[in-house]
């Protein structure tokens, strides 16, 4: 666990297996009382760091205490699973879906992990750094209209998803070509 602050935003990096415990604690501890997950997103650090690739970022806000916290979980490129916090805050339902859609990060325990903004046939995950700016998607064949959705089952759990392309197109050579940039120095580092 690592904690720092930058420009007044406090940030905590937690281990993946402790995420739900930390989240529940943040919500239930009266002195913290983070009753709202403002946002969940991810960062692809393909160009910057070698030791991990993705960071899943949770922004929490406490309405009564008016304070904010950022929680980060670091993930390696070939194991993009993270436990879902949708059981802790319902706001995570869609934001996690979107993060999955955009980065291909799998949220274990999410009740309805489908693509949100993109269509189910979309190949790849566009906000990954190895997805090119001008990449073109294959044409989706026209599906017959009039195929009824299966009655009885809720919308969750439709197996319309394709396999997830993990780490496709990344290579050591590609990393070496990326120019070195100055490292990020937080304002405060909590020990």
């Amino acid at each position, binding site marked *: 666990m690592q904690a720092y602050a930058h420009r007044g935003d406090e940030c905590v990096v937690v281990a993946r297996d402790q995420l739900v415990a930390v989240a529940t604690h943040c*919500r*239930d501890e*009266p002195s913290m*009382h983070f*009753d709202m997950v403002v946002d969940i997103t991810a960062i692809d650090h393909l160009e910057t760091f070698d030791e991990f690739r993705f960071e899943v970022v949770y922004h929490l806000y406490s*309405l*009564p205490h*008016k304070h904010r916290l950022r929680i980060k979980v670091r993930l390696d490129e070939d194991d993009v699973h993270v436990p879902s916090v949708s059981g802790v805050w319902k706001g995570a339902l869609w934001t996690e879906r979107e993060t999955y859609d955009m980065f291909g990060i799998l949220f274990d325990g999410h009740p309805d992990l489908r693509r949100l903004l993109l269509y189910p046939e979309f190949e790849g995950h566009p906000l990954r750094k190895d997805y090119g700016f001008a990449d073109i998607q294959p044409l989706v064949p026209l599906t017959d209209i009039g195929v009824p959705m299966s009655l009885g089952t809720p919308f969750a759990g439709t197996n319309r998803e394709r396999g997830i392309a993990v780490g496709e197109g990344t290579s050591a050579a590609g990393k070496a070509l990326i120019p070195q940039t100055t490292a990020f120095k937080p304002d405060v580092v909590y020990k």
Partner: protein
Amino acid sequence: MKQPLRPKSERAKPFERREMTFAEKLFYPAIWEGLKVTTKHLVENIFGRKHTVTLEYPEVQRPYPERFRGQHRLMQRDDGSPRCVACMCCSTACPSNCITIVAGERPEETIEKFPMRFEIDLLKCIYCGMCVEACPCDAIRMDSGVHPKPTYNRQAAIIDKEGLLAAGAKTIATQGGTFGSRVAGHLKKHI
């Protein structure tokens, strides 16, 4: 979780929800009030068009304000050649990459570069005004007061150097770092 903790604010002012009075519950008084408003508008618009806000467009046109970002124009030097020195600032600053410049060389002159081609694709242009902001020699402006007009084909939406220059005019902006140039600070950007 179920703590009745709520943020408190000095500013907050809950408003009272007025229950419907008996007269309001009868529908008709409120309908009568509404009919009075619409009938007033109807009568006053038929006899004198008191409230009418619609402009009958091609015949009546609203004047554009001074800052209106309309179609581009290229400003001219005293001899009628473009002020542009093909520095590529505008095409770099353009978020939609709609400006194409091909620079030419003028070896005998003090100003060495000039645009051989200067084309703006109005279909790509988003009229954000960043090219004007980026121009270091007051060569491109968007103050022509002409809004983009529809065309029958895509080629016609690309205006070339001649078209841009034809809309342009001479500018009084001095340039070149002559002695006492700091005094020229009072010169306005617009003529």
